[in-house]
């Protein structure tokens, strides 16, 4: 885990690069630092491998205060990928990848094996690329080698400073996909700096949004999209992306509020009357505080009808599935479809019945979104 505590960075000319940064990056997750240029995201990242020293505050990597670790040792244990790739042009690909293992005095045999393994991992054929020089490779291939170099000595932490920004859109997409795929296996703690929100949303487990040397908001992509902290965040996410999220309605918007309910104390004959008058085949059973208890169907009632002592509370069945008001419609539909439900109740956190999403209410909502414009009947 990486932790920054009250970190400040002030340069000698008085420029304040970081005001007061507090953040945590969880182990095995991709944390993306994002913000407009000059927001301090790269500065923050470079504090971690001590390429920049903080003016105040502490930086911890895996529980250790980095100011007590020799910077050279520290950096050998942290993978580093930079935007301009920074491969050593006078070394072939194998030697470029082998840089850190050599600094760590690995045996040559082990290094050669590791180089081939890594080339395969990043999708380059070892036989073909091992002895080529960086200038003979395309930008995308070079950055693959850059990633391989960062992984070489099996660091637990990897810093990536806008690694894909300089690539063409196709290579960028490919490398993003492969990073996600790779991360599933290697589970490294990755700090990824970018200014591209699409990239951040795609790869991040956690996003740290920065502006003017301060953290504006941090959270999962979902949290940031759903609850942007302020106008800056909204603007940075972009109206289009926000709309995409907000266009998917929640259960609350789709549900019918007037569900036909019955108390458990009601008799069976009375319940049939209610069903009859409201033209439904089942009733939602709630107590007097509107807490959801379950449901009864007309078939259950008819089966038990002969027993005059039975009340609704005796034949109620609990719901196997309920949704929250903020559950996305897409998820509601998934549940309805997967469990072949006729309807699903919407309940608050304390199990109060708020409404029902029925097949009818779904269709009603769809017809609101996609008006027929008079076509058809």
């Amino acid at each position, binding site marked *: 885990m990486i932790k920054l505590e009250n970190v400040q960075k002030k340069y000698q000319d008085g420029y304040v690069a970081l005001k007061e940064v507090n953040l945590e990056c969880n182990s095995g997750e991709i944390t993306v630092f994002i913000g407009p240029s000059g927001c301090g995201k790269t500065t923050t990242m470079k504090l971690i*491998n001590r*390429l920049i020293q903080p003016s105040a505050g502490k930086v911890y990597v895996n529980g250790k205060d980095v100011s007590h670790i020799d910077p*050279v*040792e*520290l*950096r*050998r*244990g942290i993978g*580093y990928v*930079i*935007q*301009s*790739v*920074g*491969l*050593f*042009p*006078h070394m072939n690909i194998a030697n470029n990848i082998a*840089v*850190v293992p050599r*600094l760590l005095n690995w045996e040559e045999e082990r290094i050669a094996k590791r180089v081939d393994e890594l080339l395969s991992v990043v999708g380059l054929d070892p036989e073909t690329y091992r002895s080529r*020089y960086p*200038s003979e490779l395309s930008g995308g291939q070079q950055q693959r080698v850059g990633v391989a*170099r960062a992984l070489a000595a099996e660091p637990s932490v990897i*810093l990536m400073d806008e690694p894909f920004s300089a690539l063409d859109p196709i290579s960028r997409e490919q490398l993003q996909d492969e990073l996600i795929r790779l991360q599933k296996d290697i589970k490294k703690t990755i700090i990824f700096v970018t200014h591209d929100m699409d990239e951040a949303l795609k790869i991040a487990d956690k996003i740290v949004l920065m502006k003017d040397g301060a953290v504006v908001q941090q959270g999962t992509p979902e949290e940031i999209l759903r609850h942007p902290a302020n106008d800056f965040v909204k603007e940075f996410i972009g109206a289009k992306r926000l709309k995409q999220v907000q266009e998917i309605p929640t259960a609350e918007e789709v549900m019918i509020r007037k569900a036909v309910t019955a108390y458990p104390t009601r008799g069976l004959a009375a319940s049939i009357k209610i069903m009859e008058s409201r033209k439904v085949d089942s009733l939602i059973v709630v107590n007097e505080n509107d807490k959801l208890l379950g449901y009864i169907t007309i078939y259950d009632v008819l089966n038990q009808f002969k027993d005059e002592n039975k009340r609704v509370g005796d034949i109620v069945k609990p719901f196997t599935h309920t949704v929250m008001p903020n559950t996305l419609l897409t998820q509601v539909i998934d549940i309805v479809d997967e469990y072949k439900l006729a309807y699903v109740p919407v309940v608050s956190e304390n199990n109060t019945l708020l409404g029902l999403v029925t097949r009818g209410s779904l269709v009603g909502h769809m017809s609101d979104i996609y008006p027929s414009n008079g076509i058809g009947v």
Partner: protein
Amino acid sequence: MTGNIFSEILNYLQNNWSTLLLLTVEHIGMVICGLLLALIVGIPFGILAARSEKAGSVILALANVIQVFPSLALLALLMVFFGIGFTSVVIGLFLYSLLPIIRNTYVGLKEVDKSITEAGKGVGMTAFQLLVKVQIPLALSFILSGIRIAAIIAIGVATLAPFIGGEGLGKEIYSGINLRDPVKIYVSAVLAALIAILADFLLGKAQKRARVD
């Protein structure tokens, strides 16, 4: 007349080849000694200059001052301090070779892409490892170009060696001037020029090999 000169030259070469060979070897020897000294002193100064702006401006200014000194005047001054002979010549050649080597080392190191230096630092190289494994190999072509320039200047300046009691092909040129013997002048001058051309060619090749795209 022309045919005459050619046969005279051939004749001259036949009779004096051992002296000429000796002078050529001495000439090259002086140049190599001067160059080696300049490398030993110049490269570290070049590195220092590239590391610190302040030191850099002082070092480059000093080396520049030495360079603008007229060569004969510098040699004469050196003779005053170090006496006549080999030592003064070598010191003179050393001083003349210094600027191109310092300047090219400085420029070569400055030209190394910042991102590559940062990558080296970022993967955990010490300053020395960065210098030896990355910066110097990448600056090598520049440094060799400096050596090439220095060698050509030194080969030229070395022809002035006889003025302060040194050896080398200058001796033959000088005696040719005194004796008004064009053959002597042709042969020794062309030999000195050939050495310069050869040095230029060989160091040019080395420089090309050291270049990294």
